[in-house]
């Protein structure tokens, strides 16, 4: 996984609440057996007409937002299915940060496994950042994970909380399977214990 430290880029506003994983990446694109190449289908049914032409009014089809690296979104982003194709599609498009007031649990976790930083901020901050994101080519935010800060176009700063373990994994780009395998001994001991007291498992 790629390390995450700071990111500067265009932020796209997606104020809709409850953006679900079917919107982020519709099921017809889940048939892949790869992780890559999903960016072209990100938000497919909102971004493209049935004949494949672009929906001009959709934010990611507009000029500066085609280069977005950040999304500022309505409440409860990523609800729905567990498909990791959702963060894969975001990442493949170039989105590395999503900012909202709340995220669905599974989506939130999946982001961290792929080097995407989901940031939770209070409603007021989110609304300010949405306003920033409306500013077209001036909609540039700078996210500093180490400092836990988002720098707005006017230079002011929004700070955010994040779980220290998750933060460290992102900063170091850690593979947590390797981390967990370091606990091999404890896992084996657990299995021994379980075999004797709950042999039916």
């Amino acid at each position, binding site marked *: 996984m790629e390390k995450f430290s700071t990111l500067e880029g265009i932020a796209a506003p997606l104020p809709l609440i409850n953006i679900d994983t*079917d919107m982020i990446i519709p099921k017809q694109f889940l048939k892949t057996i790869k992780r890559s190449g999903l960016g072209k289908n990100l938000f497919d049914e909102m971004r493209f007409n049935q004949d494949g032409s672009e929906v001009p009014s959709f934010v990611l089809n507009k000029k500066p937002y085609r280069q977005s690296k950040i999304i500022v979104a309505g409440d*409860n982003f990523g609800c729905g299915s567990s498909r990791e194709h959702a963060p894969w599609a975001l990442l493949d498009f170039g989105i590395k940060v999503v900012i909202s007031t709340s995220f669905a649990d599974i989506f939130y976790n999946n982001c961290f496994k792929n080097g995407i930083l989901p940031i939770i901020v209070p409603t007021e901050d989110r609304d300010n950042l949405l306003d920033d994101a409306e500013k077209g080519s001036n909609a540039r935010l700078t996210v500093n994970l180490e400092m836990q800060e988002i720098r707005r176009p006017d230079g002011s700063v929004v700070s955010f909380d994040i779980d220290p373990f998750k933060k460290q994994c992102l900063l170091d780009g850690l593979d947590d399977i390797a981390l967990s395998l370091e606990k091999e001994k404890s896992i084996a001991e657990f299995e021994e214990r379980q075999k004797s007291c709950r042999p039916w498992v």
Partner: protein
Amino acid sequence: MGKLRTLYDKIWDEHLISDQDGTSLIYIDRHLVHEVTSPQAFEGLRLSGRRVRCPEKTVAVPDHNIPTTGDRETGIKNLESKVQVDALRENAKYFDITYYDVDDVRQGIVHIIGPEQGWTLPGMTVVCGDSHTATHGAFGSLAHGIGTSEVEHVLATQTLIQKKAKNMKVSVSGSLGDGVTAKDVTLSIIGKIGTAGGTGHVIEYTGDVIDELSMEGRMTLCNMAIEGGARAGLVAPDQKTYDYVEGRAMSPKGENWEKALKDWKLLFSDNGSHFDKVISLDGHDIAPVVTWGTSPEDVLPIDSVVPDPHEFNGGKIEAAKRSLKYMGLSPGQRLQDIPIDTVFIGSCTNGRIEDLREVAKVMKGRKVKDGIRAMIVPGSGLVKVQAEKEGIAAQLKEAGFEWRFAGCSMCLAMNPDQLTAGERCAATSNRNFEGRQGRGGRTHLMSPAMAAAAAVTGRLFDVRNL
């Protein structure tokens, strides 16, 4: 005396391997795998030269992609679907995992066959790369959906890195009226708490109504915990649970059965244990419900009218406007006046034998209305066989339903069963998101009995007035 603990606390403690500042490693007893969210995980294992730590605790089945017509055994026509299903078969073989192939009568939707085969047992931790893993919580097992990276993590380590969730209690007192089912209960709860109401929590369902529900009903209930934002839902095991579990292929036998039973009887929330959030409903207040919008929280009793978006607050106003446009509905329209084109009965929410019996009961002496496309998709091969044995299949075919083979089918349009743009469907599944059942398709969620009533009348209809 030790600390008072909830059912969730107890299962959590039992499976905790290590804990560092609230980041915990928990042991996973059962891992269910399907074709859509696993190929990248298996590929990861191969690339890093890792093996599946406990193949005997892992089971794989194809369900999302496979066609539900009889010709599927001769091959899946959609090439991408075929590649995915072939990959699962091959991975299961390579890593020595139990696999129920398309022509195996035990094949079916992963959340139906887990309990059916006795893979899911009380007190266990169960995961699957699928959000509706919450279903298995009906057995008092801690069950939740995970992403593909986590699937790989569990395959390699039989553990999962987790933060402990908060405890939430949803209690439903009283009793249910005629025509009101587990589906109405679970939808009504989501209507009350919203799709983010349970975020960060594990829900335990309690109360007289829950006690009275069958195991199938409890599975329907827990299945949709995720639609309320909770990763997992739980019901404490009782005699019904033991009776359901006893004698299943993977259930403990003989001496182990007695041992297990003793263990399972300790699985309840201690009196006075702490819940961070408590929600109460009265069963008498719950009516047969349907959804009108594109979020499972957009739910109303069948005798209501389509709401005006301005009745809501904040971001919901825009969301409701968008929903109504997508659904082709206008404020004030009576739900009962909404005509439908299609009826879909199936999915991991309502594809079990009890659901099909419910449909058969409503359809007795009745027919699917002319011009309505009505489809029944049993949740597993065994459910299908059972319904055929009971004469349900013959009755429903006679009434005008298509009778299909087991799979996810029209719950999500990854297989040939899909809605076309504008097609309106009365569905027993769990998600009414935009495009969920096919691009432009319009989904109204409801119980099997209500879906049957819609099949008879060709519109959304109160089953109690049939």
